[in-house]
């Protein structure tokens, strides 16, 4: 039972962590684009 719970838990943690990471990168790039647009 514990192996099943661990497998499903790690799967969701992995997916959630990657989506959070993508979101953070997206926000950083948008900020960067805005800053560059202001500089020009």
């Amino acid at each position, binding site marked *: 039972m514990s192996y*099943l719970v661990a497998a499903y838990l790690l799967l969701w943690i992995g997916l959630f962590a990657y989506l959070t990471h*993508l979101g953070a990168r997206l926000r950083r*790039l948008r900020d960067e684009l805005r800053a560059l*647009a202001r500089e020009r």
Partner: protein
Amino acid sequence: MIPLAVATAVAFLAALGMIFLYAPLEAVQGIPQKIFYVHVPLAWSTLVAVILLLAASLAFLWKRQPANDRLARSAAEVGALLATLVLITGSLWGKAVWGTWWTWDGRLTSTLVLWFLLVGYVLYRALAEGPREQTARVAAVIGVVAALDVPVIHLSVQWWRTLHPQPVVLRAGDVGGGLPGSMFATLLVSLAAFTLLLAVLVLARYRLAELEDEVEALWLRPALRRAPAGARTAPVL
């Protein structure tokens, strides 16, 4: 993108419902066998991601279009994530059923080789310095080499008969015949959910790659290149 994400969420809810409420308990392995319904679809999505990587890499080497490079690096990064999850879920299933976290079995070892190649691709893209075109070309070659491992993984259980089971779903002339109907139906719904997830992740990563290229193009424009010393430096994307 949003309708696709909603469809993915619905497919995952349906898959989880079927896994825990509909699919029967396997007689020998018991509860740990339910790892099968995520492990196999994860492996399937990894292979689809690598086939995407191969197609995009070959298209880039042929046409040199940035869109193909963006697709290749998106597929490689998502493929690396999925391959990691395949190894983790497989290891947990192996411990529950075989009594070991890892064994140097043909299928496991060839999957680990693919993981190293995909992680190597992602690290190379993150750390390589030099002209973008040259980096993309070298990465495309790494992508093609990674894809060469896919047939090895597929055939490994026939070439080296060790611990990993023979195919039960994709047997020649008998698709799904190795499983009871309810287990096969559950697996199909889970496969659909993970295929949709792959599409959502690759699309989201592709959008990010477009932004990365936009930012880099802005940095490379002459007005910004002539920025005085001490001004902001180009970010590592």
